[in-house]
């Protein structure tokens, strides 16, 4: 492990000696040198129930983690390279693939960026439809995340309940877009289809029930004394370190920094809606795991507001010319608040129908840097809770 960690996080007993890598093409994990008989190197992943599609090379001394080297890339699909070969419209279906549970938010910055490149103004109703879809998708993602957080802590009920309740919103999205998870609903110029008939009533009913349901999770999960004793004061990320490491989303807001792109740099109609942007100051795994749950209630609130304020009729898309292309040379960087944090899309256009370069700046990749930092000095039993509280989605980080 060659990352320099700040002095306030001390390793438990023995120091890992870091050799400078002799070759620049050193495979991951080899930089961790075994110097002490006491230290055991564990390969957590990629086939491990607690790793996701990534590998954590963890060195433990007894029950304490002395070093951790994350090795992502097992689901690297080259989305950015693919985007350079496809035009702006055919890029839509594959760019949502990194996080299919959050597919609307995954497409959002790209769509906003392409609209700025093409100079399109989106109809008002389409903006509200987008906000509703994005918030529903945020809830769907967080429910999935919460389910895995539950099973990571050995709480099987918390795995089953969110997976079941998530179906409510998935049904809504299916009604809205026709697909359960990979919607491809956002397109430059609006959304693909108008809302179906009486969607508003169904949506309001489902969202109200959903909110009532997720409030019940407090009793079984968030107020559970064992959960609190396990996650409080573990993996504490201080405010300064959160800024320094450049983390985002719920991780950042758990460390006491009020930064929500929806609020700070509103896109579409978020500036007309009341967004709470929950902030906690503890910075521990418990706060990080609670903020997404509170975010869901906020999302329900936003959906209700948007349903109320939405124009009842009107166009939802601007017809584009076939094969749209940018106006010559341009760059654009758009960001949105996804379920995991600020998600950016950097498009370099050279006036051709395909982007010259497309870069997704994904929150999972930005949060990954905090993982070796937080795990150092923690107990092995805290590894799953700290790891998953970072709101990390391996597929998204790899792109």
């Amino acid at each position, binding site marked *: 492990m060659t990352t320099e960690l700040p002095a306030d996080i001390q390793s438990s007993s023995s120091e890992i000696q870091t050799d400078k890598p002799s070759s620049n093409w050193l495979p991951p994990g080899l930089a961790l040198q075994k110097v002490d008989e006491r230290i*055991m190197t*564990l390969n957590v992943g990629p086939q*491990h*129930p*607690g790793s996701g599609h990534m590998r954590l090379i963890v060195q433990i001394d007894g*029950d304490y983690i002395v070093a951790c080297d994350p090795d992502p890339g097992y689901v690297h699909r080259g989305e950015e390279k693919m985007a350079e070969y496809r035009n702006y419209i055919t890029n839509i279906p594959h760019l949502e693939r990194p996080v299919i549970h959050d597919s609307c938010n995954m497409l959002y910055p790209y769509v906003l960026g392409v609209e700025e490149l093409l100079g399109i103004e989106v109809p008002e109703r389409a903006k509200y439809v987008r906000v509703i879809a994005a918030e529903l998708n945020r809830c769907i993602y967080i429910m999935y995340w919460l389910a895995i957080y*539950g*099973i*990571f*802590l*050995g*709480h*099987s*009920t*918390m*795995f*089953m*309940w969110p997976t*079941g309740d998530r179906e409510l919103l998935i049904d809504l999205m299916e009604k809205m877009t026709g697909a359960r998870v990979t919607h491809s609903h956002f397109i430059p110029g609006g959304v693909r289809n108008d809302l179906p008939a009486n969607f508003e009533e169904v949506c309001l009913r489902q969202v109200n029930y959903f909110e009532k349901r997720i409030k019940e999770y407090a009793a*079984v*999960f968030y107020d*559970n004394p*064992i*959960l609190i*004793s*396990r996650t409080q004061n573990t993996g504490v990320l201080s405010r300064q370190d959160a800024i320094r490491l450049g983390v985002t989303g719920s991780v950042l807001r758990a460390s006491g920094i009020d930064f929500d792109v929806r609020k700070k740099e509103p896109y579409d109609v978020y500036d007309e809606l009341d967004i709470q942007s929950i902030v906690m100051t503890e910075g521990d795994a418990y706060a990080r795991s609670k903020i997404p749950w509170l975010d869901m209630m906020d999302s329900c609130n936003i959906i209700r507001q948007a349903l109320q304020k939405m124009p009842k009729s009107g166009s939802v898309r601007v017809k584009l010319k076939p094969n749209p292309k940018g106006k010559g040379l341009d760059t654009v960087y758009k960001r949105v608040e996804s379920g995991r944090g600020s998600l950016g899309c950097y498009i370099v256009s050279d006036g051709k129908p395909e982007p010259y370069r497309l870069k997704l700046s994904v929150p999972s990749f930005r949060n990954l840097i905090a993982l070796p930092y937080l795990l150092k000095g923690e*107990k*092995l*039993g*805290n*590894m*799953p809770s700290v790891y998953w509280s970072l709101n990390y989605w391996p597929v998204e980080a790899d792109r």
Partner: protein
Amino acid sequence: MSVIAPKFKLSGFIQSLLDNIFWILLLFVLIGLPAVFIILIVMPMPVLDGELLTPFLALSYLANPTRILPVIHAFMTTDIFRVMAFPGFGFAALLAASVIFAERKMMAKLQLRVGPFYCGKFEGILQLMGDGLKLISKEIIIPAKADKPIFWAAPVLFVATAAAFVALIPVAPGWVVADIDLGLLAVFAVIGFFPIITILSAWSANSKYPFIGGIRALFQMVSFEIPLILSLLGVVMVTGTLNLSEITASQSNFPWIIFLPIGAIVFFITMLAELERIPFDLPEAESEIVAGWLTELSGMLYGLVQLGSYLKLYAFAALFVVLFLGGWNGPMIIPAIPEQILTEGIEMGPITLTVDGLQSLFGNTITQEMLNGTFWFVLKTAGVIFFIILPRGVFPRVRVDILLNLGWTKLIGLCFINIFIALGLLYAGVLGPGGLQ
């Protein structure tokens, strides 16, 4: 519910029935009969009606349903029946299997799903058989660097130890495999084997995750054994005996949980830890260490460990019942077998059916007390097992340091409080000689 087969054909059905009958007959002749002979030759033959029962005689009895009852009776009085069937392994394994099924259904209901549903006609009742067949038919993969003899032996030892534990549990008055005076000490001795077997299995796999899991199991079991033993001292003090049957018999008026609730609670918590159940399933914490010390086990080796752990679950629940809930004691609700049937036979219109061995069988072996005792014992055990399963639905896993802290400080302290309560009750004369009991 599965639909009745749409392509049902009567001829096919009859053919399958005949097929089954053919195979049953063939297997019975080829395997069953020799097995019966072997058992009958090995077993010490009882004397029936003044005549030594030989294998040939026994087989000829088999053809006569009325004369088979003495054989059954004779068999039931043997030790091998006690060990293999009723209070011993078979009974416990049946209960353990039903525990697995009940657990899955119960967890499913807690988590708003249906659980096993399609295997078997009713509510997936054959799911367990399916799982068992799957485990049996799976390949057993042994890690290349494993210490093979120990790796093979550990699951077998695990089941054997669990079965030894089961043997000490009195189910009904007089129905216990090993009725020894130091029964509770024997229980502690048997429990002491589990960490050793666990660490042997974990170490012999020569793999990292089993090793960590084994160490965790060792930590957990050793540190919880002390409060486990201490929590039972109160019962021993107020009864003055270590014999489990006598402890049960002493609770004919009231169970000890009324006087020693702290001991019962501590014993229950330590029981969860010894059984590696959530919230104390650290040795098998799948998100941290894959499956703990079970990681490298596959196929029926894994199945054996599962069987052993559920036997252990049953045995611990039974021990709780025996020590704190009064064991077989309970109101007599099983009706007595009518005297008339035993003595005069069953009147069916003009015919009176008299069965020779019925009186001896129901008069001496399957008595009313035995049936009633078994009923209450099973009912109470099922209740305790329900509470053992319940935390799995509502608790996450604890961490090692919290667990050890709980075991070494809080539980041991509570144990001593419990012992003081027991002593106080004894010296105040509430319990013990001259007291309530």
